[in-house]
């Protein structure tokens, strides 16, 4: 192993999507336009992630859950936002506002039924087909969020192989772009859901979404969050997420994986890569400091050097080898 003079090669291929480095944001934790508004320079120019995953969009507008929606817990936080978003049609109208972004975009899509997911994909595909060059951001893939724990739709799609298959199949028919299925950790066997997604047309898998959780008000001993339950994220869930990424990587060799769950540092990101992740998403860390994304990218570079890896590809899966 030798590290090149100009540093390790951070580039990765997420299926057909070429990434400058392996880091992207986890859906719902990072809003490009909000960052740009609070930055001295040109945030589009200095955009730290290799790909942008916006907050989940659904077919119809959603007002989300009542407050309070978040609370801090030891080494983490629990949130129950409830997929608040303006709906795909209003969302599409906003696309020209950030068309200047150079990095590829993976659109996160939510819903309660297969046809709702497919309707979002179809609406986006229709808009993309009619767009002139440079009019829209570079939408190169979709992440199907079948794992949000904070929407009360009865059965969670991502906990049921048959429902997972239906959502993937419906969306697969609507697009030839890269299709990720975002998996929930709230299942007995994450590879069972992963298998259903891949069989039905997923090009890749992203995991984990939040762990379903309950926080009580210390005075009333009633559920603290407006939605009663929420999803736990942050460093507290990293060991769980690593274990699940490793299981999925071993079960589906060759399938691109976006690993996430409590990534706070470059070393955390490298650990996900070592467990087989192709790329790594940063979630709660985005809330801790404006500079967290660029810091984590730099730290990953340093960690690859420190561990003697010449590239991200060289580090991938080392934790899985005997």
């Amino acid at each position, binding site marked *: 192993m030798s590290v090149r003079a100009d540093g390790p090669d951070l580039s990765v291929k997420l299926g057909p999507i070429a990434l400058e480095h392996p880091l992207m944001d986890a859906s*719902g*934790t*990072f*809003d490009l336009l*909000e*960052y740009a*508004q*609070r*930055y*001295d320079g040109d945030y589009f120019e200095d955009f730290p992630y290799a790909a942008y995953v916006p*907050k989940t969009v659904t077919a119809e507008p959603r*007002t*989300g859950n009542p*407050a*309070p*929606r*978040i*609370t*801090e817990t030891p*080494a*983490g*936080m629990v*949130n129950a*936002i409830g997929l*608040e978003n303006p709906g795909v049609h209003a969302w599409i109208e906003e696309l020209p506002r950030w068309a200047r972004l150079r990095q590829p975009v993976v659109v996160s899509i939510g819903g309660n039924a297969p046809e709702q997911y497919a309707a979002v994909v179809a609406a986006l595909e229709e808009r993309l087909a009619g767009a002139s060059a440079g009019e829209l951001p570079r939408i190169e893939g979709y992440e199907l969020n079948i794992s949000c724990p904070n929407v009360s739709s009865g059965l969670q799609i991502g906990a049921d192989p048959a429902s997972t298959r239906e959502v993937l199949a419906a969306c697969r028919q609507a697009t030839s772009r890269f299709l990720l299925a975002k998996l929930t950790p709230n299942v007995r066997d994450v590879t069972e859901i992963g298998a259903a997604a891949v069989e039905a047309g997923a090009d890749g898998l992203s995991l984990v979404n939040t762990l379903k959780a309950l926080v009580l008000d210390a005075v009333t001993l009633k559920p603290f969050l407006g939605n009663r339950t929420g999803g736990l994220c*942050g*460093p507290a869930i990293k060991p769980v997420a690593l274990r699940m990424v490793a299981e999925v990587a071993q079960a589906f060799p060759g399938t691109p994986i976006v690993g996430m769950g409590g990534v706070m540092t470059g070393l955390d990101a490298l650990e996900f890569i070592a467990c087989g992740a192709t790329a790594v998403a940063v979630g*709660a860390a*985005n*809330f*801790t*400091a*404006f*500079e967290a994304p660029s810091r984590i990218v730099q730290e990953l570079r340093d960690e690859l050097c420190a561990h003697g890896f010449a590239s991200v590809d060289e580090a991938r899966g080392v934790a899985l080898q005997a």
Partner: protein
Amino acid sequence: MSGEGAHVEHDHTQWAETSHCRVAAVRHFGAFAVVELIAPRVARRAAPGQFVMVTVPGGAFLLRRPISLFAVHADRISLLIEARGGGSERLTQLDVGDAVDVAGPLGSAFPTEGVRNALLVGGGIGCAPLQYLADALGAAGAHVTAAFGFRDFRSARAAGAFSIERLSVATEDASVGRAGTVINLLAALDVAPGTVVYACGPTPMVAAVQRWTFAEGLRGYVSLEAHMACGTGSCHGCVVDTARGRLRVCAEGPVFRLDEVTA
């Protein structure tokens, strides 16, 4: 009150990059502390009503704490902090010379332009942004009156941090100032027509101030508190219900028109 006038506009600066600050001074008032930080780049951009996100030193707390600007003088910003939970308690224990990271100023500011008579109404730690507002209004030549309500002697210690010429205080346990709530203070005031009301405090107080303000035929603004994760518009964790729908306290607020919030 009619719906005339615009929403609280963002004609001021928001800036989310982290400033690594030193503590220049700390004053304690019971469970409260006024922490003065050397933060030239925050101070230069700040306006009354805005807040900063403060990292709790020591690494035990993941999320930064939203704290409104209590005062701004030259290159210094001051924060009035109440020890309420582990994170805020740690912040009240800061010492001169300590390093602390802040990001800001963030959020909307109190509109002050053209205001000749202002009535500042605060409850508990909600009084915090009103010193900075009083300073700015006073500097612009406005006539400023303030009325603060506290639950008990312990929470009324915060009043000692303020320097506002016409300030009256009420406590619900009658330990300091007038007995009762801030509404009892308002009822005793002689309010000039056209006075603009600025409120910040717990929800029941805001609701009562709303009723009083509308009954008096006045208009005003309110600064709201909320649990926040990012403080910069990304997480949608801090929403409140308003006449304009569900809005983020950190991004569309914390300052809203008094008639648009549903307290």
